[in-house]
C-alpha cells in the first residue's frame, strides 16, 4: 500500500481566509482546522454567513478574488493543494475533490445535454475514448438511480426534475473518482420529500467509493441521519467539533446548545436551526473576546477579554471557557 492511501481525504490546518476591502481587511475564516477520513461524512452546521461555504470554496481553490488563503494548509488525500497555481488546481478539481452545490437547477449548463457534460468530465479525468466515456456516463447515471439511463443521457437538463437533476450533479461530481466531495447544502433547494433520498444516495456512493464528504446543511435531521461527525461554525471559526452522537446529545458550546435546543430526541427531524436571540456579528464588527459573547447566556468577564481556542478533548473539541478554566 502506498502511504497516500493512509492519509485522510481532507486535512485542513489553521486555515485563514481574508478579503482586502476599501475599509480594511476582512477575515472571513480564522484558524479553521478539520480532518475528514476516507469514507467519512463530516457535517458542517452554523448560521448563514458563518463561513461554511467559504471553507468549501477554499478547499476547492475557488475563492472569489480578492479573497485569498492567508494562513494554514490544505491537504487533499495527503497532497498539499493550497499552494498550487491555477493550472495545477484545475487538475485537482474533479479528480481529487468534487463538489455539489445547492441549486441543481442552475448547476448544469442548459445548452449541453447531460451526456455531453458527463463525457466532457469523464474525458478530462481519464483517457477513455468518446464511446467508452459515454458507456461510463450511462453507468454513472444508473448508479445514481436515473431510470432509463440509456435514453436519458441524451436529454437536456431542463427535461429532468429537480431531484433527478441533483442526481445528475452527483454523477458529475463522482465522474472523476475524487476522494473528497464538498456538498454545500445539496438538498436545501429540493422538495422535502426527496431530500432524504438524495442524502442517502450520497452517503451510499461515498461509502462505496471510499470518498470523504464535507456536508454543509441547515437540517439537523440530515446531520443526525447522515453524518459521522459534525463541526459547528460561528463567525468564521469552528467552535465545536465531535461525533454526531456527542454533539447532538451532549452539546458543550452554549451556541451549539442553542442550535440543538429544540431537538426532542436524536434522529428526530427538525427542518431549520433554532433561533437564538440576536444575530451573528458581521465580519467587520466581531466583538473582542469570544465572538459569541453578546448572545451568550453564560457569558463572564473572561469571555469579553480573551478569545477561546478550540481545545481537543477525549471526544472532539470545543472553544469555550466554560469547559476550559471557567468564564470568571
Amino acid at each position, binding site marked *: 500500500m502506498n502511504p497516500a492511501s493512509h492519509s485522510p481525504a481532507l486535512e485542513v490546518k489553521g486555515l485563514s481566509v481574508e478579503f482586502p476591502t476599501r475599509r480594511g481587511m476582512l477575515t472571513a475564516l480564522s484558524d479553521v482546522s478539520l480532518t475528514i477520513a476516507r469514507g467519512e461524512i463530516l457535517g458542517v452546521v452554523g448560521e448563514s454567513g458563518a463561513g461554511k461555504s467559504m471553507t468549501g470554496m477554499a478547499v*476547492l481553490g*475557488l475563492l472569489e478574488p480578492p479573497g485569498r488563503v492567508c494562513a494554514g494548509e490544505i491537504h487533499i488525500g495527503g497532497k498539499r493543494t493550497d499552494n498550487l497555481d*491555477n493550472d495545477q488546481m*484545475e*487538475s*485537482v*478539481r*474533479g*479528480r481529487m475533490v*468534487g*463538489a455539489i*452545490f445547492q*441549486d441543481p437547477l*442552475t*448547476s*448544469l*449548463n*442548459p*445548452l*449541453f*445535454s447531460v451526456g455531453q457534460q458527463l463525457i*466532457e*468530465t469523464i474525458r*478530462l*479525468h481519464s483517457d477513455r475514448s468518446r464511446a467508452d466515456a459515454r458507456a461510463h456516463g450511462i453507468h454513472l447515471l444508473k448508479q445514481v438511480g436515473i431510470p432509463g439511463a440509456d435514453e436519458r443521457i441524451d436529454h*437536456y437538463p*431542463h427535461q429532468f426534475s429537480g431531484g433527478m437533476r441533483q442526481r445528475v*450533479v452527483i454523477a*458529475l*461530481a463522482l*465522474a*472523476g473518482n475524487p476522494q473528497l466531495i*464538498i456538498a454545500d447544502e445539496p438538498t436545501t433547494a429540493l422538495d422535502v420529500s426527496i431530500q432524504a433520498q438524495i442524502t442517502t444516495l450520497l452517503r451510499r456512493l461515498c461509502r462505496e467509493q471510499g470518498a470523504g464528504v464535507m456536508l454543509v446543511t441547515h437540517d439537523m435531521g440530515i446531520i443526525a441521519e447522515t453524518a459521522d461527525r459534525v463541526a459547528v461554525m460561528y463567525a468564521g471559526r469552528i467552535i465545536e467539533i465531535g461525533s454526531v452522537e456527542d454533539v447532538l446529545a451532549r452539546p458543550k458550546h452554549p451556541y451549539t446548545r442553542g442550535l440543538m435546543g429544540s431537538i426532542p430526541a436524536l434522529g428526530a427531524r427538525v427542518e431549520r436551526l433554532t433561533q437564538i436571540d440576536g444575530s451573528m456579528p458581521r465580519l467587520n464588527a466581531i466583538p473582542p473576546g469570544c465572538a459569541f459573547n453578546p448572545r451568550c447566556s453564560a457569558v463572564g468577564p473572561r469571555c469579553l477579554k480573551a478569545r477561546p481556542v478550540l481545545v481537543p478533548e477525549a471526544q472532539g473539541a470545543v472553544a469555550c471557557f466554560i469547559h476550559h478554566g471557567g468564564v470568571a
Partner: protein
Amino acid sequence: MLAFLIKRIGNAVLVMLTVAFFAFLIFRFLGDPVEMMVNESATQSDRDELRARLGLNEGFLVQYVRFVGNAAQGEFGLSWRNQQSVIGLIAERFPATFELVIIATLLSLAIGIPLGVFTAIGRGRWWAESLQFGSIIGVSLPSFLVGILLILIFSVSLGWLPGYGRGDVVNLGWWSTGLLTQSGRAAVVLPSLSLSLFQITLVMRLVRAEMLETLRADFIKFARARGVRRRALWFRHALKNCLMPVVTLTAMQVGNLIAFALVTETVFQWPGMGMLFMQAVTFVDIPVMAAYLCIVSFIFVTLNTFVDIAYAVIDPRLRAA
C-alpha cells in the same frame, strides 16, 4: 419542432401581407398610374381604356389580391422614370447591397466576438479597459463621418484602397459579384468596414456584458469544480450561452444595415439598392419605392423567422414551443 416551424412561417406570411397592404396603398393612391403612363396627346377614352386594362376600376380587395399575387411573383410593374421593369432594376442592384451587408455582418462578428470575449476575461487589465473605452468612440461616430474619414485616410492619403465604386464585377448570369476580382475585393473593404464599425462595437459590448454575466453563473462555478479548463470554460461553456443575444442582435441589425447602407452607398458611390432608392425618391418613382419597401421587408421578415429557428436550434428549451 415541425409545429414550431409551421407557426413561425405562418407569422411571417401574415406580416408580409400587412406590409404588402401598405405598399399597395402607396402604389395605388400616391400619384395616378394612368397619368404617369399615357402621353400628352391621349384622349379621355384612351385613358379610360388603359384604366380598365390595368384593372383600376375593379374592387379594392380584388386589386389588392392581384397586387399581392404579382408581388409574390416579383412583378412590380414598370418604373415611371425609364419604363424598365422594376424587379429587373432591383435585381440588378441587389447583389451589390447584399454583398456589402453580408461582408459588414461577417466583419462585425469576426471582430466583435473575440474582442468581446477578451475584454470580458481581461477585465481590469489596461488593454481590456482601453478597448472598452475605445468602443464608446465607435458607437458614437456617425456612419457618414466614418466613411469620409476612411476615404480620407486609406484612399486619398495612403492610396491603398479605392474610395468609390464597386471595382470589376463578374457576371454569373443571375448574380453579379465583385468578390471574384482583385479590384472588386479591394473596393468592398472600406465601405463594409465603414458600415460595420458601429456593429463591431455593438457586438463587442454585448458579448462582453453577456460573458461577464454568464461567468458568474452557477453552472460555470460547477464546471470549474468538476475540473473544466479555463479555455473550455470561456469558449465552450460561457460563449455558447452568449451567442443567442448575438444572433438576435445580428439578425435585427441586418435590417438596420440595409437601411444604413443608403448612407454608405451614397458616400462610397456603391451601386446598390440604396442608391437606386435615393434616385427613386428624387424622381417620385412610386413603383420602385413600393417594390423597395416590399423587398426590404421581405428580407427583414425572413431574417426574423430565421432567428427564431436558429434560437430553437441553439437552445433546446425552446423547441417545444
